């Protein structure tokens, strides 16, 4: 089973990297870009057969290590 974890800065926490990318895109003629957020994706291979159990474990991993919940939110997608 595979877990895809996306980690992004929370809404309201300034994403300096996203802003820098936005300015770069706008400056290169991509004028329709209105916002950019930069995050990270963590792909985890697991020996799990139960999707709910896997998701629960990955959520625990996020709380313990993968995200800093003071400044970041995370989303988990489980793939069979």
């Amino acid at each position, binding site marked *: 089973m595979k877990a895809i974890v996306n980690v992004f800065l929370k809404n309201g926490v300034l994403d*300096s990297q996203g802003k820098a990318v936005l300015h770069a895109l706008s400056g290169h003629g991509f004028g329709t870009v209105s916002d950019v957020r930069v995050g990270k994706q963590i792909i985890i291979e697991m020996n799990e057969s139960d999707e709910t159990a896997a998701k629960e474990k990955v959520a625990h991993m996020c709380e313990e*290590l993968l995200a*800093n919940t003071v400044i970041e939110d995370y989303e988990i997608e489980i793939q069979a």
Partner: protein
Amino acid sequence: MKVGIVQFPGTNCEYDTQHAFAELGCETQILWHKEDTIASDTDLVVVPGGFSYGDYLRSGAIAKMSPIMKALKIYADNGGKVLGICNGFQVLAEIGLLPGALKRNEGLHFISRHHHLKVVNNENEFLRFCKTDQVLNIPIAHHDGNFYIDDAGLKELYANNQVLLKYTDSTGSIDNPNGSVDSIAGICNRAKNVFGLMPHPERAMESLLGSNDGRAMLEGFINA
């Protein structure tokens, strides 16, 4: 006075820190990250600067999972004194011994230069030999020094006198190099036994090398 200095793979300020505390007459000991106890007669544990685990994932994130940090958490919860400098501050925030988090610098650059700091509060062991509003000249060297805390947390920091240092210019006016909330450079926990700052007092021990203002800061811990 016994000072323990934590060492992770990637730590690079442990020997500067050791030298600084030895200069102040302390007995020092390097604590490898795989050790799982801290001797009970240790008077202060310093988590020094560097790039623990290459700053992978987030600065300080992987270091917080190490055996020595579990021991340090117990040591601090029992009232033991802890100082986190630069990467050490990031580690202490990651493990929750200090509130808030350290984000990427607002300008996205690594900043390495001397900077001025203003003492906001000296009613603690760390800054007891500094005066309130005193301006200190201390080197900074970080990529992720942008202190963040939400509004409620910030209010609480001020209410409990936990905001210790702010980035300023040489006259004491706010001069924020990295986007930190309220230009905050250093804080402590509510119980005032855990301290963290991004600047490097251990690199400001000799006026010949640019400043000895770090001496007055670190001396606060001696025989406190």
